[in-house]
């Protein structure tokens, strides 16, 4: 019974979970809190190594009566999660000291949330998928509220928890309907059953799809379900916001892709008809609302919403090519977003929250390098050619235009022009505005590493786009 051979497929997740457990226990024992973080990073790297060596050895396949699968699709997303996890740990090394957050729980929750995400990405069964989502979300609820003394963090946790639970109730209802229709919770079998059923249970399937779109819409923050995101991103600690706006968002996309693409492939026309208005309204609301923001975290929240809109365009054509463009877009967006948040984290100094746009005025005077890196990130988020952001948007729009969504692409381009305004406003603050008392930022080594990695990737992926795109295409076919 104990299929030893394919337990290997679960190895990356197991390693990560053991690291989490180790972090919890060691934190009780150790005095120097940093070692805990480094254990976390080591665990993540080990797990990543195993994951990709397994993939290269061709160990991909399903385990536990194909409830969990290791394939190109999930390993690409796992790459995103590893990057997001490791960068968040590096970012928060210094940050949680200034915020006086208990580091042991913080890192273990990060690790558990990451393992939840990996389970989501690899889930081939609705039950595992639901539990993965819950594992990730629960740890995030706590992380959002981990700064107990600060009221904003409490409120962020409350809002995230209640609306998250609300959306998972919708998710459960969707799962129950699919289970009722097809008798199984395994995604592949659901797809087969739907084909067998044909038009018979079409209405009920459609309701199930709508419930799924609502639940995933919440996690991905598409428009009618996005309202939690700005408040929670602003309230939560910056490093957690960085993590939240990258890893979990990508995981939600992974799950959405898995469910809509593989399970409900037959209803592709219907659910892309649902997502099309959602994505364009998301881009519109995200861009327009970001215009009048003064808090940079809230502005980045709305920009994250807008980027979710752009990425969701990848769903519409329903072809492998558009899907590859979407995951490519997500990878680029994640990296650049982490870079931007790294800068926001550095701005948090003793006594200064560093979240208001005015805190950025005159940044270029005293610390030109940081200002320049922020400029790269802002340009890349806008989608200005040499940088990676443009490539991401380019392929997404290409895929959509080929599939005939020209009106949508035109609107999206117009709004990305609108978005240029609030991204470049940050640059204007940094370079053109005078600062009352510009102070030199102390950039910890770990964040230096992060900034270096993200900015180089932002530039490299802009100049050599095919590297990432081919990897995305291969992982979809593989």
């Amino acid at each position, binding site marked *: 019974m104990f299929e030893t051979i394919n337990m290997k497929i679960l190895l990356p997740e197991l390693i990560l979970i053991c690291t989490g457990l180790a972090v919890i226990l060691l934190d009780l024992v150790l005095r120097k809190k940093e070692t805990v973080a480094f254990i976390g990073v080591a665990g993540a790297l080990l797990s990543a190594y195993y994951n990709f060596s397994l993939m290269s050895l061709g160990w991909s396949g399903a385990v536990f*009566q194909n409830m969990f699968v290791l394939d190109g699709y999930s390993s690409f997303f796992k790459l995103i999660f590893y990057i997001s996890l490791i960068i968040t740990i590096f970012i928060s090394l210094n940050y949680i000291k200034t915020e006086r957050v208990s580091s042991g*729980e913080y890192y273990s929750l990060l690790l*558990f949330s990451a393992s*939840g995400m990996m389970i989501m990405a690899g889930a081939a069964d609705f039950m595992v998928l639901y539990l*993965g989502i819950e*594992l990730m979300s629960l740890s995030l609820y706590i992380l959002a509220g981990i700064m*107990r003394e600060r009221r904003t963090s409490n409120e962020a946790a409350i809002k995230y928890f209640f609306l998250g639970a609300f959306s998972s109730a919708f998710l459960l209802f969707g799962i129950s309907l699919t289970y009722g229709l097809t*008798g199984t919770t395994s995604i592949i079998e659901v797809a087969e*059953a739907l084909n067998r059923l044909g038009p018979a249970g079409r209405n009920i399937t459609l*309701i199930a799809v709508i419930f799924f779109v609502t639940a995933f819409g919440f996690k991905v923050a598409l428009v009618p379900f996005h309202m939690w995101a700005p408040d929670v991103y602003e309230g939560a600690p910056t490093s957690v916001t960085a993590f939240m706006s990258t890893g979990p968002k990508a995981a939600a996309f992974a799950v959405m892709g898995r469910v809509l693409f593989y399970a409900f492939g037959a209803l592709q026309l219907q659910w892309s008809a649902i997502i099309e208005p959602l994505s364009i309204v998301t881009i519109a609301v995200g861009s327009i609302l970001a215009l009048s923001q003064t808090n940079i975290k809230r502005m980045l929240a709305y920009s994250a919403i807008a980027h979710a809109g752009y990425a969701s365009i990848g769903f519409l054509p329903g072809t492998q090519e558009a899907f590859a463009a979407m995951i490519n877009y997500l990878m680029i967006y994640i990296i650049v977003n982490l870079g931007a948040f790294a800068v926001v984290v550095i701005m948090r100094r003793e006594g200064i929250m560093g979240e208001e746009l005015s805190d950025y005025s005159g940044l270029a005077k005293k610390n030109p390098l940081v200002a320049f890196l922020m400029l790269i990130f802002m340009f890349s988020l806008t989608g200005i050619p040499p940088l990676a952001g443009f490539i991401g948007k380019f392929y997404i729009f290409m895929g959509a235009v080929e599939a005939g969504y020209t009106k949508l692409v035109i609107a999206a381009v117009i709004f990305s022009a609108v978005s240029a305004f609030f991204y470049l406003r940050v640059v204007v603050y940094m370079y053109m505005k005078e600062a009352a008392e510009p102070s030199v930022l102390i950039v910890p080594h770990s964040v230096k590493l992060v900034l270096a990695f993200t900015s180089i990737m932002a530039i490299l992926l802009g100049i050599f786009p095919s590297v990432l795109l081919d990897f995305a295409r291969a992982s979809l076919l593989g």
Partner: protein
Amino acid sequence: MTLPQIFFAYFAVALTGLSLLVVTRRNPVHGVMWMLILFIHVAGLYLFLNAEFLAAIQIIVYAGAILVLYLFVVMLLNLKKIEKERKFQHIWIVGLLVSVAFLTLLIPLLGKFSVYPPPGEYSVERINSEGQIMTVGRVLYTKFLLPFEIASLILLVSIIGAVVLSKRKLN
């Protein structure tokens, strides 16, 4: 009207009535009490769906542990203030409209639900012959092993979370 239909009718009316009561009580403690009775009726319904073990768990975990947790938290609040306050939002009409719309949209569609997939192997007789807990146990620890392990993780995370958030001074 056959006997099962009578029982179902009773349960349906009881459940909807109780849930309406739970939702509309001004005092949270009353709400929790009605919730308890509701859970008992849900357990009864499970019995009628040949899920005795689940009925037991519903009573033990839901009614026994979770509601107690709620009661403890409700005890923290000062109920006097809550008594005087409004219990609904200003625009509660909108909420009512949404849920009524929800009903009117879903019920006609779900009403036409008929059994689609071929019947599985766990017929009522087989379950009863083998015993509820035995079947659940066998299925749970062989077919659904992975969710079981993830569930343990979720529980661990909830312990960590609850302790981190509520313990005043973490030594």
